[in-house]
């Protein structure tokens, strides 16, 4: 059981780091209880430093001597509704800095409904535990399309979005693994700024990831790799159509967790978007985060 708990810690702790380093974008993965607990509550704080300011549509990386940094404070909770059903929610507060400019505010609130469609009740050596989920993203954060300053004040995706996906997890002795698949659709909205007047069509996106962990005593060390992609975003105004390029980036994460008693746990996570994959039309960053989680047993 502890190993499954740790798997959960790992996924959650790297969650904030999956978004595009610059200007918001991307969609986080929902808060879920993967262990046998009744409820959980966690808070995390992470700092992301943009180290590659721009990767263009040819895959060329560019960096300046001044970079953005993003701080994310997040509270998350999940609760069992019935035997296999659960709900979850996350509320981030995001602060973005560039030079002497600082922008701060509420990010996108995400809610989710999950169902455990594969149970590991008999500890089958091969069959994983499977949880399917749907997620609703509320556009409480500011999208880069709403920004008057090129996305420096953006705080997330900023669109209504509906997602669905699954997480498969499995433990063998001291090892655990998980696979995560998630697809989402962001919905269009009207924008009226000095830069853009019209309708923005964001399109589809996905997260595809896997990870594994090594457990000993009250500790766990883990690794994960997630590829995120977002469709071309189109802006249609009265007489101008603008198309943004297809976005893609990969986030590698390593984590170290400590289980303090049966109910509390601490996780330190380092993530890096510059090491894997073939990024396009994005910025890349490195993040350091700390998460504290409390769980209530069934």
């Amino acid at each position, binding site marked *: 059981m502890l190993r499954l708990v740790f798997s959960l810690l790992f996924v959650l702790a790297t969650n904030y780091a999956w978004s595009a380093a610059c200007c918001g974008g991307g969609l986080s993965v929902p808060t879920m209880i993967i262990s046998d607990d009744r409820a959980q509550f966690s808070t995390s704080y992470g700092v992301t430093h943009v180290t590659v*300011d*721009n990767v263009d549509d040819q895959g060329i990386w560019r960096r300046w001597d*001044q970079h953005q940094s993003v701080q994310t404070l997040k509270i998350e909770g999940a609760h069992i509704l019935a035997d296999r059903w659960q709900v979850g929610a996350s509320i981030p507060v995001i602060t973005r800095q560039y*030079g002497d400019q600082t922008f701060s505010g509420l990010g996108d609130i995400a809610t989710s409904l999950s169902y455990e469609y594969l149970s590991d009740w008999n500890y089958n050596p091969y069959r994983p535990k499977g949880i399917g989920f749907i997620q609703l993203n509320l556009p409480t954060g500011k999208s880069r399309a709403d920004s*008057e300053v*090129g996305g420096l004040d953006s705080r997330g995706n900023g669109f209504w979005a509906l997602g669905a996906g699954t997480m498969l997890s499995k433990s063998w002795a001291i090892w655990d693994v998980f696979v995560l698949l998630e697809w989402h659709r962001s919905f269009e909205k009207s924008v009226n700024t000095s830069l853009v007047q019209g309708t923005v069509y964001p399109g589809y996106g996905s997260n595809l990831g896997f990870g594994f962990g090594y457990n000993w005593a009250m500790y766990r060390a883990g690794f994960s790799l997630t590829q995120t992609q977002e469709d071309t975003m189109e802006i249609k105004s*009265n007489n101008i159509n603008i198309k943004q390029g297809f976005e893609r980036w990969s986030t590698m994460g390593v984590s170290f967790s400590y289980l303090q008693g049966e109910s509390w746990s601490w996780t330190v996570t380092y993530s890096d978007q510059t090491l894997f994959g073939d990024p396009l039309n994005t910025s890349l960053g490195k993040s350091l985060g700390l998460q504290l989680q409390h769980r209530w047993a069934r």
Partner: protein
Amino acid sequence: MSGKMVSIICVSILVLANCARPKYVEETTSNQTPAGKVEVAAECSAVFSESKYCLSWYWENKPTSKQTGSLIFKVYRLNQFDKTAVPVDFKSTPDVILWMPSMGHGSTPTQTARLDVGTYRVSNVFFIMPGDWEIRFLVKDENDAAKIADGVNVAIGI
């Protein structure tokens, strides 16, 4: 005696004549094009989509990662006779937007001021990241400010 006098007079005339510093008025003035030469026709590589006016621009102060910059741009039409530049004004001062197409976002707002007929300064030019950008010179519709009546995009690498 008379011969001597004539000789002295002639020598004096010659001496006076050698000392002369004549200043002739040029027959052609400096603002006239020398015969056989014509004014060079203006380039028109960036063209506004509707009016077909031409645009040229240059950095007055090139922006950096930490400092804003400014640029000067000129709007002109080509003289129908010899294709030289004739400055023209739009009815309203054009707006200038900095846009990164690949990532679908702009940058901080700029300010445009008219300096002379067809000549404008764009200040507060700042790019929030390096990469391929567009400088969009836009003229709003005089009846509907939400509509763009004319414009031209210039691609640059930062």
